[in-house]
């Protein structure tokens, strides 16, 4: 890199640093500052406010062309901006689903007006999105959706129910997978629509999970009318539109792994809090960190966290080398990381249970709960990790069939 370029990047780094200092909420990063947590309106509003600020300053909204509201910057500059944001931490993005799922799907299948209308507001964080895919009888078997749509002039009338909707509470728009043909064969009977949550006939409710939180919701459509122009892709081709979204979702796992390695991270630091917890817990008069069984398990957790974290850069090195020819195969590799993380997290949760002993029963809200019940929350929440975004079993099929090239069970039966 030329000196000139390096100097320019350093200047940008200073600029971003100063901007963050001036614009982050007052007291950000200090122990006194308490960010609103969970799935609260305050949290959502804060992230919305923050993302708009970043977008206006040209510090977010990358990866999309200018005509769709994208901020175009050289890759090195984006790296610098991301590094600086990672360093201080930020209130983040209001609904990652818009950015990570809706925008890529719109780019691939959206009509021109849809791209122009929706992508800019996704990038600026002004509008949030949800995804209406899963149903009570269509989880892993997504092609089995029962929500039904029938054409009525220039509109489609939709009836049905969706569940396991993330960001259900704050979404302004959604992507909806609807069965529009009762006679066509599987995978050719679905159509995807964009819907506005303010339409008549739409209702949403919280779904109470085993964590006692309502991170996910349910959506009901009672003769909800969607204009024809909101169709994404062609009629009957919705399965393929949905596949784009799911591929983007799968690669989120990979993205998460990549995110963690921007800055040099100390080896095994992912287990620091486990060590501290084990040190603070005494059983039969002895700190658990002194117990070889717990030491072994914590060391293993540290190793697994590191393996997960450095999978990202190793994967990128592989992808760079493979080039475009193998890009399709590589997109399936996110299933590998996703499964690994879910299992690692669950093993860690079981370790936490053992460290806490009787206290592992105390939920958030108990005045005796250790660390305000956050550990126990994770014990419960981690069980969802192997179900959401493709169950571990579906991911194993993807790895076996798409990466290892093993034959599909149904294809073999037919033959």
């Amino acid at each position, binding site marked *: 890199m030329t000196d000139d370029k390096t100097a320019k990047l350093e200047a940008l780094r200073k600029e971003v640093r100063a901007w963050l200092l001036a614009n982050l909420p007052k007291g950000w990063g200090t122990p006194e500052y308490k960010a609103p947590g969970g799935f609260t309106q305050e949290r959502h509003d804060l992230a919305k406010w923050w993302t708009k600020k970043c977008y206006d300053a040209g510090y977010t909204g990358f990866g999309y062309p200018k005509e769709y509201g994208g901020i175009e910057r050289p890759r090195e500059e984006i790296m610098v901006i991301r590094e600086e944001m990672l360093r201080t931490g930020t209130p983040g993005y209001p609904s990652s689903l818009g950015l990570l799922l809706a925008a890529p799907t719109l780019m691939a299948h959206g009509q021109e007006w849809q791209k122009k209308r929706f992508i800019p507001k996704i990038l600026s964080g002004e509008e949030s999105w949800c995804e209406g895919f899963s149903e009570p009888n269509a989880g892993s078997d997504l092609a089995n959706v029962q929500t039904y749509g029938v054409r009525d002039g220039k509109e489609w009338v939709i009836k049905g129910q969706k569940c396991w909707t993330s960001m259900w509470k704050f979404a302004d728009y959604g992507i909806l997978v609807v069965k529009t043909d009762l006679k066509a064969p599987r995978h050719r009977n679905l159509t995807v629509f964009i819907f506005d949550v303010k339409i008549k006939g739409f209702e949403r409710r919280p779904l109470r999970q085993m964590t006692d939180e309502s991170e996910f919701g349910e959506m009901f459509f009672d003769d909800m009318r969607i204009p024809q122009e909101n169709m994404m892709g062609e009629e009957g081709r919705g399965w393929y539109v949905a596949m784009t979204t799911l591929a983007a979702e799968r690669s989120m796992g990979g993205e998460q792994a990549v995110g963690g390695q921007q800055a040099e991270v*100390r*080896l*095994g*630091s992912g*287990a*620091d809090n486990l*060590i*501290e917890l084990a040190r603070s817990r005494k059983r039969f008069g002895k700190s658990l*960190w002194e117990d*070889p069984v717990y*030491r*072994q398990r*914590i*060391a*293993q957790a*540290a*190793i*697994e966290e*590191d*393996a*997960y974290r*450095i*999978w990202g*850069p*190793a994967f*990128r*090195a*592989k992808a*760079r*080398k493979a080039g475009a020819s193998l890009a399709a195969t590589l997109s399936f*590799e996110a299933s*590998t990381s996703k*499964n*690994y993380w879910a299992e690692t997290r669950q093993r860690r949760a079981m370790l936490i249970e053992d460290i806490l002993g009787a206290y592992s029963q105390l939920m958030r809200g108990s005045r005796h709960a250790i660390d305000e019940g956050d550990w126990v929350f994770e014990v419960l929440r981690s069980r969802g990790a192997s179900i959401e975004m493709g169950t571990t*079993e579906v*991911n*194993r*099929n993807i*790895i*076996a*069939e798409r*990466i*290892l*090239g*093993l*034959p*599909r*069970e149904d*294809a*073999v*039966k037919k033959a």
Partner: protein
Amino acid sequence: MDFGLNEEQDMLKTMARDFLAKECPKAHVRKMMDDAVGYSPELWKKMAELGWQGLVFPEEYGGSAMNFRDLAILSEEMGRALVAAPFFSTVMLFGLPILHYASDAIKKEFLPKIAKGEMIGTLALLEADGDFWAEGVRAKALKRGNSYLLSGTKMFVTDAKAADYFLVAARTRVSPNPEENITLFLVNAKEWGVYVSSLKTMDMVRKQYEVQFSNVNVPATHIVGELHGGWQIIQDIALQANAMLCAEMIGGCDWVLETTVNYAKERFAFGVPIGSFQGLKHRMADMYMELEHARPLMIRAVEYVRENRSDAELAVSMAKAYCADVYESLTNNGVQLHGGIGFTWDHDMHLYFKRARWSANTFGNPVYHRDIVAQKLEQQLL
């Protein structure tokens, strides 16, 4: 740190794979299993012609001056081919310690011979208790003029029958700290008082022996490193050897997964390929997942050793514990997924199964290394 390979490294990998497929097929490996010494001098010579034994030695000693990562690429392919040759012993346990710690005179004498394929060596460290720790070293070397008289019995010595020289750990003084009185000696295998006897071990490719030294005469000039300073060197040998073992193990895992997946595509039961059954498919998906997460840990360990980083030990212990567990798990599944044929002597799977056990138990097993990880993490938090 770059996880990928550059163009030269790609070439090295391809060349190694092609060479080993041609020169060291399983038929050759099996022939060597039944051979008392365990390697063929012709193959050893050909490897030397390719510059493998001296890959990381400087050019002045007849080496190719390549780096530790390059050596790991080569080792990965050797682990994959299950190469029947005393390469690991000669390079990792003998050549590198000489390069890093021996006197100039010894380096000039030994290294060019190793690079040319004219000398084989190994480390004689473990004794009766079989554990990798300083207290396990009971052999003694007593000074007599300009020489030492070395006595003791070493166990689990790899490739001892092929070796021209041993690097032997022995006690040279009385000290309350067992780590402060060990010295490393170069002992000629043909010297009076050296007795090598085979151990019947499960891994018949990488052979192990019991070696007795009874009042063996060793010139004082054949001390490697400082007098009484052997244990630090041994720890360094273990560090580098473990990183390299991880590379070998990843290569082995690669073979196990590939072979198992191919078999599952070809073997029919109930009229369909067994690889179409989810029960089997999911096991193979897990094998892939484990291997893909072990590989980056191995590369990190190798790179940190190459860069001589202060956290290299932690990186290596993390990698060793994980890779060894994964290799054992993959070979367990490899045997299971092959069904009856996987349990036979004729199928090659058990060779990898057994190598996985040797690898896991050499220079500290996963439990040992997790304990090191815990200690290091604790130090980081102080």
